[in-house]
Structure formats: C-alpha cells, structure tokens
C-alpha cells in the first residue's frame, strides 16, 4: 500500500493552510480566465511564472495547476451561457450547452458540466497516482538515445493531433526547435544566432515567446471580432438536473473520463483534443444522434468530463519524463526550472512532497471548483458583462509587468511584441502556434541528447534503432505519420476538427 501512504503524505502537504490558499487562488484565477474569452491558461500561467519565483516549489505548482484545470471549469460556463468558448477546449460545449441554455435549461447544463468535471477530476487524480510511479521507474533507465526518440515521438504526436494541415504543423515544430537553440551553445560556448545582442546570449525566454504567441496575438485577433453577446443569465435558476438528465448523462461522463484520461497522456494531447474526441464519440454512440447540436445533455457531459480528465492526466508525462505534452506543461517545466528543480523521473524520489502534494492538491482543487462554480455561478456570469475594451488593456498591463520583471529589461518586452506579430501572422496563415511552442522548449534538450547519443555510438545513427525502447518510439512515430498521411484517415482527421464549425 505504498500508493496509499504516499497519497496520505500528499494530502498532508495539500491541506496545510498555505497550500490550500494557493490552490484556492489558482482555482479562482483559473475559473476567472476560463470564463473570460480571449485569455487562456497559457497566457495566464506565463504571466504568473515570474511571480512564482517568490513561492515555494510546491505552492507554485499547486497554484499553476489550479489555473489549468480551473480554466476547464470556467470555460464551460461561457460556452453554455454565451456560446463563446471561454477556453479553447470548451469549443464543443458550445454546440449543445448553448442550445440547452436557449431552451431554458442553462442550470442543468452547468450542473452536469461541473459535476462531470468533478467526477473526471477525481478519477484522473487517481490515475496519475497509479500510473506515474511505474512510468518514472522505466524512465530512469532512459539514456540519451531513448530520450531523443521519445522527444521525436512526442513532437510527431503533437503535430498529428494539432488542427489543420499536418505539414504546416511539422514545419512549425521544426521552426520552434530552431528558435529554441538561439543562445549560447553549451558544448562549445559559441553564441548562436544572437546577432551581437547580449540579451540573446541566454536564449529567447520561453515565457516571452508564449506570451507573444498566445497573449498579444490573441488579443489582436479578438479585437477584430465585433463583440455581440447574448447572455442567458436570467435563466440560471434551476441548477439541479432532473432524474432523466442524470440517467442520460452518467454514461457519457464515464466514457468522457476514460477517453480524456487516455488522450491526456499522449504527447500533444490534453484538454482540447479530449473534448473533441469525446463529442465525436458520444455522437457516434448515441441512439439519437439527430439531437446533437440541439441541446443533447450527452454533448455537454461527455466533452466536459473529457477535457478535465485530459487536463489532469497531461501532467503524467511532465511529472515522470520531464517532457511537456502541451504548452501548459511546458510552462510547468519552466516553473520547476525557475525553482532550480530539473524536471524528470528523479523528481518523484527526490521531492516526494512536491510530487504527491501536487497530486493531492488536484483533488482538493476539484472539490473547490465545484463549490466555486455551482453556487457562485452568478458572480462569474456578471464578469461576462465586462466589455472587452476594459479587459484587454488590463491583460496587456499584466503581461507587460510579467515580462519586464523577468530580468528588468525592456528588450524582453520588445521580443514579446515581435512574437505577438509573428503569432498573429501564423493565425492568419493557419499555422498552429502550439506545436511551435513545444518545439521551442524541446529544442535544446533534443540537441543535447542527440549529441550525447551520437558520441556514445561513435557517430552511428543506427543507435536509435538498435536500442529496443528507442526503436519502439521511432517505429511508433513512423506509424503515426504514415497512418495520418493516408488519404482516408487524413480526411477523417480534418473532419474531427471541423466538427466545431
């Protein structure tokens, strides 16, 4: 019963007043930015990253994690009441949730979303506790060639699961890898692509890139849209779902949790893909597929459970392998590094308090979120009436403070603006920024592991095939690429992602 003991220790850490406070702050912030359209968890966590320097590592991670899964709860509120996804992973919740609201059933939709998320949160917390230790055990045996192949696999999976054109997503990953190696080369000390700018010798800050690509670029994209909102706030009276609702919703919640937990573990997965997958699955399995898009409760229950499960299980690769599966996890790794902790399988053994405390806090946080979201729903709804013209300058001020405080340097803010412009161009050209961010964080790691692997094998690239674990990753990556490139599946994949439109 080692897991049991570990969980007890974790709860011991998580329920100390200070950690409860940070979990609450994280959940509140997460719900807030989840509710508000136009600002997501990536930009928020990026903004707060510099501030976590002053916190203990446990408190920092507990708060940042709360923001991520809190955003999944908050995002559904906006989707159901306003038909705008407050968060990208609640895009599909708009389809049926908003229709339910139009039929005067906003309350049950919100309740099912929150309760489904809570159930998914509990299950996936347990999954993390069970799956992470054995995975970390395996990962401890990884050498440079295994790590390199794992990263190749992760990046391939991330592109396969990205929206839109596959080849563009791969190009974005490679572009990200290249940007990631700007700075001092660790082996030779040579300054690469720094153009004699001293600020670039440490490389381009990850937080700065993330804030530009996801923050300023998003704001500009939002400003293009005229905001017209029809909010069903008065209809939120009867929160409790009927017996019939429960009967129809429990199975989708289960299925959504299972699918979401699985997709969350995959690199490139996480909340977004989980919710899309769950919606498609519910529609396929339903005996009344014609009700979907017209207020089917299954179309809310499934995706909402799935996105929360996916958000949480995406912590598994980050915690056990030290490899981010999405942009939020890349930021979490950034947070660990700020605290002087090298992410990887050793974290679990060296910092058990951190590891198990974080896991236990997720369960505590989920409980807080149900409380925050159901009785306090009116408060969050009020927030939606704040016009965007007040919001975006405020967001910009927080981002600017965050970036400037990284090293008290104006150049960082300039770089953020440059990446904002680049991010906006990418939005216009339908090039997804998320794969680029993953490439960016993995760039230096990949180069380092490639160099080591090649040095050990005396320059023989076959080392990646001769080692069984490494070969497994390479084969898996190749199969994924071939399968996705097949015309039939390619079409299917595009279908899944246009379902939202």
């Amino acid at each position, binding site marked *: 019963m080692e897991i049991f003991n570990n969980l007890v220790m974790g709860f011991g850490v998580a329920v100390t007043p200070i950690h409860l406070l940070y979990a609450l702050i994280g959940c509140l912030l997460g719900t807030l930015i989840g509710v508000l359209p136009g600002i997501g968890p990536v930009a928020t966590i990026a903004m707060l990253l510099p501030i976590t320097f002053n916190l203990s590592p446990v408190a920092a991670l507990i708060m940042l994690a709360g923001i991520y899964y809190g955003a999944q709860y908050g995002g559904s509120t906006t989707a159901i009441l306003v038909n705008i996804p407050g968060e990208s992973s609640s895009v599909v919740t708009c389809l049926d949730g908003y229709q339910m609201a139009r039929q005067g059933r906003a309350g049950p939709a919100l309740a099912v979303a929150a309760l489904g998320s809570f159930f998914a949160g509990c299950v996936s917390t347990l999954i993390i506790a069970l799956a992470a230790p054995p995975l970390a055990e395996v990962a401890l045996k990884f050498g440079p060639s295994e790590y390199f192949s794992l990263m190749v696999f992760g990046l391939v999976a991330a592109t396969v699961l990205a929206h839109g054109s596959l080849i563009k997503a791969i190009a974005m990953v490679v572009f990200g890898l290249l940007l990631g190696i700007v700075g001092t080369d660790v082996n030779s000390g040579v300054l690469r692509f720094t153009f004699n700018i001293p600020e670039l010798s440490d490389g381009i800050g990850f937080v700065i890139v993330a804030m530009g690509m996801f923050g300023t670029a998003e*704001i500009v994209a939002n400003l293009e849209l005229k905001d017209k909102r029809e909010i069903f706030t008065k209809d939120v009276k009867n929160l409790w779902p009927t017996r019939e609702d429960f009967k129809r919703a429990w199975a989708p919640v289960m299925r959504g949790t299972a699918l979401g937990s699985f997709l969350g573990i995959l690199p490139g997965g996480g909340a977004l893909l989980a919710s899309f997958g769950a919606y498609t699955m519910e529609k396929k399995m339903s005996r009344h597929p014609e009700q979907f898009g017209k207020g089917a409760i299954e179309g809310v229950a499934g995706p909402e459970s799935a996105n929360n499960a996916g958000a949480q299980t995406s912590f598994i690769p980050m915690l056990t392998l030290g490899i981010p599966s999405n942009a939020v996890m890349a930021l979490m790794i950034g947070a660990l590094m700020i605290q002087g902790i090298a992410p990887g399988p050793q974290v679990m053994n060296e910092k058990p308090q951190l590891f198990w405390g974080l896991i236990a806090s997720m369960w505590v946080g989920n409980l807080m979120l149900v409380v925050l979201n159901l009785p306090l729903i009116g408060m969050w709804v009020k927030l939606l009436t704040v016009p965007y013209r007040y919001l975006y300058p405020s967001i910009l001020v927080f981002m600017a*403070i965050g970036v400037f405080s990284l090293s008290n340097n104006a150049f960082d803010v300039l770089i953020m603006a440059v990446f904002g412009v680049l991010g906006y161009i990418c939005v216009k050209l339908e090039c997804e920024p998320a794969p680029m961010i993953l490439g960016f964080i993995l760039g230096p790691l990949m180069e380092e592991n490639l160099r080591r692997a090649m040095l050990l094998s005396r320059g023989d690239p076959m080392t990646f095939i001769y080692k069984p674990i490494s070969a497994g990753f390479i084969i898996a990556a190749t199969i994924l690429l071939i399968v996705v490139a097949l015309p039939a599946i390619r079409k299917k994949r595009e279908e899944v992602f246009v379902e939202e439109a």
Partner: protein
Amino acid sequence: MKIKSPKDFWSGLMFLGFGLFFVVWAAIHYQMGTAVRMGPAYFPILLGGLLSVLGLAILLESFVAEGPPVPAFALRPLILISVGCVLYGYLMKPLGLFVATLALVVVSAFGGHEFKWKEVLILYAILMLGSWLVFVRGLTLPFPLCPDFIANCPIR
C-alpha cells in the same frame, strides 16, 4: 503558374525563408563538426534544411491544391498593441512605472473599437494603483516608480 492556395503560398515562403536563413547563417559563422562531435552548426543546419524542404513542399502544394485566401490583417490593433508594449518596456527605466503604464493603456486602447478618454483614464488609474500595490508593494518587484529626473521619489 497560378497560386491556388494563398495561405499555403505565404506560409511556405515564410518557412523556406527562415529555413534557408538558419542554414546559411550557421554554415558561414559556426563550425560544422562531425556526427560524433557535433559542432555548433550541425543541428541548426540539419533542422534548417528540414524546414526549407517542408517550406518548399508547402509552397509547391499551393500551386496545386485549392485553399482559402489570406484574410485581411487588422493592422491598427496589431501596430498599436505592439507599440504600446514596446513603449512600456522602454519608458520604464527613464520615466518609471506610472508613466509607462499610462503609455501602454492609452496606446493600446486606441487599438480598440471605441475610445473614450474618461473611460481610459479611469481604467488607467485602477491598473496603475493595482500594479503599484500588488506588484511593487506586495510582491516587491524592483520597478522604478518615478521618472529619473526626480531625485527623491516621494512614492515608495
């Protein structure tokens, strides 16, 4: 030759351009090394080459497959928001937090749909107080508050 998918055409060109740049720059300035002992140029040239090939493929495909046109750029918000951020950074050291925040809020607010001085100034006042109390007093970030030319800053 007619461009059938403008979005792909321009993104292909962008990737090709960036890829070639990384390859050429690395080849001129850094040591290539060998596969066993990779020099600083090895990985960038490998990736830059890959990016160029991908960019070229996207570029060529844009002459074959149909695709949507590139939507118009909203230049006004793009420029004003970028300029606002840059001003914030570069005004901070000489003029202090309060002036820098003013520049960011006012310039970025010009990028929106409607601009009312009264609203913007109230918003500025709130954000200024907020950043001062939370970040400077609360989290003790070492931001300069007053402009450089004021010798003894009355605000702490």
